């Protein structure tokens, strides 16, 4: 693995990229040493993905003082040139082919081209096997990709990059949908690549992970370079501050709650998912539920909202509660904010107003039983004001909003049903660090108004700072209960990752 004489895999100086008069990148410098794990951090819209697209030749910058790859100056980058030089990107959606075999996915780029030729299946399989061996992974090469879990697809994407002799790999949010143990395995592979002399640029919003894996971190904000910092001695709080530009308050907000019990579960079990769960949530209480992905948190929520049938008993406002379906659960006063806002939480094709109105249609009817446009308008404007949602017109597509504002629309849609219990499943996924505080302020306000809230999150700090009581779930059981006022983030994380 030779890298250029200067030891840099990539050097960019003074990169400016303009979209419609707005500088998406404003004279940004960026450099990655050969074999280094480097992190690119910043809020959504800070220019991270634009920078990746410049490096891979998808975008041509308006001006650039210097672009050099592996010590060699290049005037312009095209996708073909970037790949030939050994630059590879693993996009968040992986850009793989679900119906094709693992071997074909790994070796796909050897097939690309307009000139017809036969497919050397045996050669492709051998090459795929070799790359996987280099990563220390064994996969069924003939299996269709769609039969693999997401973590293994990630490995396939990495193998595909390596087969192209990649010496600089960009990974865009690679751990977003991985469990902790899968993440650990992925980070292991990244270290192995780095030891092999492959430079890896890691883009992730999970600050703990960023600090764990990379040696240096480049922070961007609003298209400008904030700085390049060694991760040695860097804290999550400091990194968050650099990304958002202001100090993030992180005070424990827990207090004693003595409201009436809203929800109570005793001995709740779904075989294979979770067992023997006892859970009490009071009016005005925020109960945090944390644990690794796969611990059974979302499954528990699904049982509470009638998506799955559970054994055991549930009571709502003191009365027996047996939800027959999600619709039934909603009618009885539950609301569930899904972790998958993009495809389950919102209808991306529809307007802001329709997304807010979808859950409360019966309340918007006029005397003829038809939906009243005036009532719909009033509803959305009311919630825009109450939650401080920044929107253009209610008729605009929901996709025009930022992640944080989209999530507020989801909250509005459920709060409009006047629920007794609100379940928030990972409410800050894809929401900027800065906008998260706004969401949690709303959560606290709602609790103060007497709503019972179950807050599910895999980020220990989120539940610690925002819940009144934290439950730790692992392997389908609730292991321990913490009082945030009497515990520390270190103690909580130690319990989770033990």
């Amino acid at each position, binding site marked *: 693995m030779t890298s250029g004489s200067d030891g840099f895999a990539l050097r960019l100086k003074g990169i400016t990229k303009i979209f419609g008069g707005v500088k998406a990148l404003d004279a940004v410098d960026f450099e990655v040493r050969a074999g280094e794990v480097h992190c690119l951090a910043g809020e959504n819209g800070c220019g991270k993905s634009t920078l990746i697209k410049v490096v891979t030749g998808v975008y041509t910058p308006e001006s650039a003082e210097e672009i050099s790859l592996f010590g060699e100056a290049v005037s312009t980058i095209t996708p073909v040139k970037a790949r030939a030089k050994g630059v590879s990107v693993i996009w968040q959606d992986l850009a793989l082919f679900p119906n094709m075999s693992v071997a074909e996915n790994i070796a796909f780029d050897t097939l690309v081209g307009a000139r017809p030729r036969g497919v050397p299946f045996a050669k492709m399989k051998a090459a795929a096997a070799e790359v996987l061996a280099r990563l220390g992974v064994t996969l069924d090469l003939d299996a269709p990709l769609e039969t693999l879990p997401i973590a293994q697809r990630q490995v396939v994407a990495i193998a595909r990059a390596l087969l192209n002799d990649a010496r600089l790999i960009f990974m865009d949010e690679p751990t977003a949908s991985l469990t902790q143990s899968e993440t650990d395995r992925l980070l292991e592979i990244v270290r192995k690549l780095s030891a092999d002399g492959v430079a890896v640029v890691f883009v992730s919003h999970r600050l703990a992970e960023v600090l764990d894996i990379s040696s240096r971190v480049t922070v961007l904000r609003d298209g400008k370079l904030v700085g390049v910092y060694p991760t040695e001695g860097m804290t999550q709080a400091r990194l968050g501050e650099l990304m958002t530009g202001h100090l993030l308050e992180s005070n424990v907000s827990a207090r004693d709650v003595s409201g009436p019990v809203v929800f109570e579960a005793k001995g709740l079990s779904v075989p294979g998912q979770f067992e023997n769960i006892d859970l009490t949530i009071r009016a005005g209480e925020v109960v945090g539920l944390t644990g690794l992905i796969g611990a059974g948190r979302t499954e528990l929520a699904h049982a509470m909202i009638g998506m799955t049938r559970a054994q055991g008993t549930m009571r709502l406002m003191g009365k027996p509660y047996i939800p027959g379906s999600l619709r039934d659960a909603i009618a009885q006063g539950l609301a569930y904010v899904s972790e998958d806002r993009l495809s389950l939480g919102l*209808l991306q094709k529809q307007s802001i107003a329709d997304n807010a109105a*979808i859950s409360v249609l019966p309340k918007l*009817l006029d005397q003829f039983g*038809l939906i009243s446009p005036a009532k719909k308008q009033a509803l959305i404007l009311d919630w825009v004001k109450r939650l401080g949602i920044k929107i253009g017109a209610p008729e605009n597509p929901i996709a025009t909003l930022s992640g944080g504002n989209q999530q507020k629309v989801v909250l509005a849609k459920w709060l409009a049903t006047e629920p007794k219990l609100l379940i928030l499943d990972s409410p800050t996924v894809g929401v900027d660090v800065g906008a998260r505080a706004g969401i949690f302020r709303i959560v606290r306000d709602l609790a103060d108004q007497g709503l019972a809230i179950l807050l599910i999150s895999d980020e220990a700090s989120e539940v610690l700072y925002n819940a009144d009581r934290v439950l730790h779930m692992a392997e389908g059981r609730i292991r321990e209960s913490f009082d945030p006022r009497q515990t520390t983030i270190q103690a909580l994380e130690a319990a989770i990752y033990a």
Partner: protein
Amino acid sequence: MSAFITRLRNALGRETFGLLILLAVMVTAFSLASPKFLTAANFGSMGYQAPLLGLLTLAMLGPMISGGINLAIIFLANISGLTFAWVMLQFGGADAGLPAILLGALAAMAVGAAAGALEGAVIAFVGAHPILVSLAMMIFLRGLGEFLTKGGDISGFPDVVGALGHGAIFGFPLPLLLFLVVAFVWHVLFSRSRHGFATYMVGSNIRAAEYSGLPTKRTLITIYALSGLVCAIAGILMLARFNSVRVGHGEAMLLVTVLAIFLGGIDPFGGHGRVAPVILSILILQILSSGLNLIGANQHLATAVWGLFLIAVMILRSGRLAALIPFRKD
């Protein structure tokens, strides 16, 4: 004033204005080309011809907004017409009384709605692709109809029924009246009702609609049942206009309805689209066909022009006119 226009645009859909301009251009062009175009006789005959295609298009529209398609509409109409005919024949054919006619119409609508609901149920519960399900239903209904009629015609109905197809109230063609009533109900259904709202949501993302607490399965079944119901109305009208029922009547209209819907700017993947522009596009197709007929072309040329017209409109909407210029730098 501009606020009024905005409101109108929201109510009617933004495709409407472009189509209105097209309509005006065509009416002007045909008026200049043929002195017979701007006559009451011509508009009268259009008023009897367009409603059938219009009703079938409305029957196609609902499933398309829900993200599907109903390729069985023609044979749903045929089978319903057959039911109508069968009931009347049981009660004396040409001598059948008004109660028998009403009973027949109700039976026809029940059959259409039931067959539509079956399609919707297979789509909702099995999750099979609507193209495949409705195609299978189409093949089945066509076969059923041919089996029952042995490929022949059924005729001999009371005169009252013929009046539905040819009559007029105060000079206003009855079929057109029927169509406008259904179109109005459809407009209200899709712009203001809960069911219409749910149909749009199901069409744009069925799982998110489910997670938002909408009854997605019921919505799908209902929309296909309603589609079948409107097919039945079209089938009754078809019987009245041709004074006979034959399986395969109107077969050529199947893909024309889809063409009209695309012309009306409906999102082919579902979730978006309004009734008003679709009605306009039916009007445009009818004017094209009548106008060409007046200047001496036949229906086949009109069919070809419809196809070319759809391509032209889609090219204009694509905003990629630049692709027409060869050898441009990309």
